[in-house]
């Protein structure tokens, strides 16, 4: 019981909470460029100070978004993996500093994704996806219409809480019939979940059929030039973030190519 509580807690570090801070209001496209920059820079340089710098860059964002506490959950969730990375590198003889640098790199990536998902509303993300030509093209190729992928994404997010309630209902029902989930060895425990998964699957299939029917009744998928009530618009802060990120990205690449010396670790 307590164990599953901890795992849920760590997911909090990646879950969106509807708030209205300057970070939440940033355009997802600008934020995507920001994490791309962090991603690329952290991979280009294995320098502990650069990586620590990248980590520190996130602090003002975490503070402004008011998600510092929830970020700790995501770090806690990644702590085990971070420890493994550190000791594995130490044992393979790369020395303390490089091992530390690689660990920090992992934390940087964890932090930047956690920040993105904690502060980007899935709705906005869907809208942003809808604006990306490649996504629309792939979506039409695979699924028949241009906004299928973004719709799938937002609907999946919308259904998570509903399915979580379904799961709880099934678990309660099966428990009341004497099913014991936390008994036996690992294999046995996995087997215990079969009577939960099958009814849950049936419930989900039924739900999806009803959803499909209701979609028809709402004129889905609609026209090629489907409109939307809200529109993403770049604000001053978005331009600022894009400018900052692209500058850092360009400079880092320039350094990486022109001055290989700086590339040397430590």
């Amino acid at each position, binding site marked *: 019981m307590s164990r599953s509580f901890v795992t849920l807690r760590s997911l909090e570090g990646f879950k969106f909470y509807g708030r209205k801070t300057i970070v939440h209001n940033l355009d997802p496209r600008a934020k995507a460029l920001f994490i791309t920059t962090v991603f690329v820079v952290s991979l280009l340089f294995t320098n502990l100070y650069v990586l620590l710098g990248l980590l520190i860059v996130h602090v003002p964002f975490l503070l402004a978004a008011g998600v510092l506490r929830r970020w700790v959950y995501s770090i806690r969730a990644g702590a085990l993996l971070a420890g493994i990375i550190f000791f594995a590198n130490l044992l393979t003889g790369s020395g303390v500093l490089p091992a530390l640098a690689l660990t920090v790199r992992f934390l940087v990536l964890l932090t930047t994704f956690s920040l993105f998902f904690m502060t980007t*509303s899935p709705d906005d993300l869907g809208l942003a996806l809808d604006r990306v030509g490649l996504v629309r093209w792939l979506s039409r190729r695979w699924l028949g219409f241009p906004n299928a992928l973004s719709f799938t994404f937002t609907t999946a997010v919308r259904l998570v809480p509903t399915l979580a309630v379904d799961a709880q209902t099934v678990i309660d029902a099966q428990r009341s019939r004497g099913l014991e989930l936390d008994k036996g060895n690992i294999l046995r425990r996995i087997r215990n979940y079969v009577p939960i998964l099958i009814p849950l699957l049936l419930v989900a299939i039924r739900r999806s059929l009803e959803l499909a029917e*209701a979609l028809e009744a*709402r*004129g889905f*998928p609609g026209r090629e030039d489907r409109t939307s009530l809200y529109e993403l618009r770049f604000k001053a802060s978005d331009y600022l973030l894009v400018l900052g990120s692209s500058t850092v990205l360009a400079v880092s690449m320039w350094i990486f190519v022109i001055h290989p010396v700086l590339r040397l670790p430590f």
Partner: protein
Amino acid sequence: MDPSKTPKTILEARNLGFQYEGAEARALRGVNFGVERGEFVLLAGPSGCGKTTLCRCLNGLIPHFYPGVQEGEILVDGSNVTSMPTSEVSRKVGYVFQNPENQLFALTVEKDVAFGPENLGLPRSEIRERVDWAMGITGTTELKNLAPYELSGGQQQRVALAGILAMKPSVVVMDEPTSFLDPVTAEEVMKAVDDLRLEHGITVIVVEHRLDLVSRYADRIIVMDSGKVVADGTVQDVLDGQFDQLTGLGVGVPRVSQLWAMLKRDGLVSGQTPKVVEAAAEKLGGKLST
């Protein structure tokens, strides 16, 4: 077209029949009826008699979503919807389903109500207008920033209704819209539907087992059995004329009408069967005081 007829009748089923693919028998056979603009029609009948099938025909889910053999035709606003794609029909006939949870798609109420108009590709200003209007008349404006799972069943059903209304259909079909709700909430939803019809001239067709809940609002009742219409008229006339047939079919006639029928059998009362408590109280009051 006959100009004296077209404006009144909004929906007409002509000799409608349907057999689901792979089914033994036809789910609908020779269904005929017409509905006037602004009418509140109650559709009743025993389980399996074809009410849901009829609703599916009305909004084009049959034959597009459910394959099978269809006969006859349905005219909405003068045009035949049996040959139109569902997405087109959805602008004429709105469909509110039984389970409110499974008809909400967006992450907030406001965006959900906007979903239909967005699919229609309407300009943003018009979507805004329709969303505000639909949320206003269903009393969901103050819920607009909530997620579907944060709403009660009754609220969800009103949001679903708003989402349908935002498409501006001429007819709204509701298939047992209150069966997932408690009696008080169900009453609230039906009241909201009645307001629509009275204030906005929207035609409503509601499938409901519990006549108690709707007899107060409905102008008319269509009773089905084994895929056929077996009674059609004002709620009053059908209760008066075909009471025994209704109870025989297991249609949940209003309790007050049941009481009246019992008293009548004992020769204690006479005359029209009341369909709501107030009417009965008035009649009985007159009796008791003399």
